[in-house]
């Protein structure tokens, strides 16, 4: 176990210390989604309106959870994109030649990234009261639960891609062609119900959709119509499977070692 937990812990701590020492990184990864949300939110405030449970929400508030998820996405990209450089000419080199199990490496890195992403999401959540959002205890618990698994899924996904790439440019490609559309098609901008059929299909196979749905529900649900445990478990299991699949895929990717020339 010493080849899994202790190294995982040390990698997690390193991730957080590093983040804390790069203040500009903190700022930029929170500021972008925040600014986008403000512009889109106010711009589209009266154009978008949806019914969530018994509450009617307008643009600014409707877009709010989606942009928190964008924040999680940015945060997880930030913490995993560093792997590319790090394993070619950085700290990761010595991790790879040490007797640490691949599970330990992925666990430390993904958990570190997850906690960072989640804490940024929580920072974003502090705006909620100003939007008239009143959390119930259950709502807050459900919200944090959703943020955790969304972060874990996105960070595992980021790790998986980062390990496959041999340049940060390549990762940017994945980000633009895959990760961003994945976010757009998660119900962050428009609900599944009103989307054209073909898009609704894409949205329904996107695991982020279910995480976001759960998260949005946590913001607006009033105690009377709080989602059932069954509903929560169903949505959660989709997210957990998503995170699990990419976690395991990352471990296998690492175990295989690279055969390509990294220089």
């Amino acid at each position, binding site marked *: 176990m*010493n*080849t899994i937990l*202790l*190294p995982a*812990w*040390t*990698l997690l*701590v*390193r991730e957080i*210390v*590093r983040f804390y*020492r*790069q203040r500009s990184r903190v700022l930029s990864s929170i500021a972008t989604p925040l600014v986008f949300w403000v512009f889109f939110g106010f711009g589209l405030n009266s154009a978008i309106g949806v019914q969530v449970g018994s509450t009617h929400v307008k643009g600014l508030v409707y877009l709010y959870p989606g942009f928190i998820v964008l924040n999680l996405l940015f945060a997880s990209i930030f913490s995993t994109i560093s792997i590319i450089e790090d394993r*070619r*000419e*950085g*700290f*990761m*080199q*010595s*991790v*790879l*030649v*040490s*007797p*640490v199990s691949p599970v330990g490496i992925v666990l430390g890195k993904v958990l570190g990234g997850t906690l960072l992403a989640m804490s940024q999401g929580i920072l974003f959540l502090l705006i909620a009261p100003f939007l008239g959002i009143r959390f119930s205890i259950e709502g807050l618990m459900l919200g944090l639960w959703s943020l955790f698994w969304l972060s874990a899924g996105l960070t595992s996904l980021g790790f998986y891609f980062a390990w496959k790439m041999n340049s940060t440019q390549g990762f940017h490609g994945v980000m633009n062609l895959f990760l961003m559309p994945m976010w757009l098609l998660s119900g962050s901008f428009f609900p599944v119900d009103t989307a054209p059929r073909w898009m609704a299909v894409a949205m329904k196979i996107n695991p982020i959709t279910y995480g976001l749905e759960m998260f949005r529900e946590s913001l607006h649900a009033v105690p009377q119509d709080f989602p059932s445990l069954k509903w929560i478990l169903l949505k959660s299991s989709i997210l957990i499977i998503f995170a699990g699949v990419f976690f395991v895929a990352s471990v296998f990717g690492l175990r295989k*070692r*690279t*055969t*390509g*020339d990294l*220089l």
Partner: protein
Amino acid sequence: MIAQSAPVLTIDKVSHRYGDRVAVDQVSIEVQQGSLHGLLGPNGSGKTTLFRVLSTLIPLQEGKVSLCGFQLDTQPRKIQEVIGVVFQHPSLDKKLKVKENLVHQGHLYGLSGAPLNRKVNEVLERFSLSDRAHEPVEQLSGGMKRRVEIAKALLHTPQFLLLDEPATGLDPGSRADMWAYLHELRKEKGMTLFVTTHLMEEADTFDRVAVMNNGKLVADDTPSHLKSSIGGDVVLLISDKPEEISTSIQRQFQIKTQVVGREVRMQLEAGHSWIPKLVEAFPGAIQSASVGKPSLEDVFLKLTGHRLTGEKE
């Protein structure tokens, strides 16, 4: 050479391919316990690939490697526990302090708590880094960073140290310091060092040097044996028309010559006596003529037909 027992590292017919390109081709080397063995070659010769295979960074595709009694293909984890690896590109986390880097490294090897702390302080002391322990790595000089790098590799008291171009980016002073440390370690702990390099001066001080070129092992011997394989002196002429001069010399004097860039090289007994003859034979065409004892550079040239340095990947 140092008193030897069984080889601690046996590389047996190892090959490595990147797609169709053969980077390491059927290389076999034996490294004796306690020795300082160099792996010399230009960039692209395959020495870094071999280093990566040995360090477990990339898989062993073909051949056998036994290191400290373990097989690389079946017991990589065991090997990882007993070797220390120093990379060409620093593997330090620049955002972390010196001591933090070492503590993380210790955790990777299962060390923790008081024993780890003792070990960290010990290596800090040994490498005169104690007063720098709480400085972020990014604020250190190149030589200092390299010292931390080596300290880090030694934290788990490895039996075998693998170094990839350890002198990269160091000025001559720091380079000498680094080697002083490494020699001391070797004397004290009987550690075995396997070092890749493209620097002749460095390789000259090693116990043995394996020379690689285009993925193949072209020699593996002590530096003095390698140099004595070239008889006599090395006579060197520099000219704008090296090819012309070379062919004329071959015709006129029946001497074997080699053209490298603007140089015409020859190995001759009593080289000094040839200089006036050669210079007079080509009035005005020779810009400079010199004679010297063969160096490892000459050995490399003789073995491969090209220079060791000055070629970039």
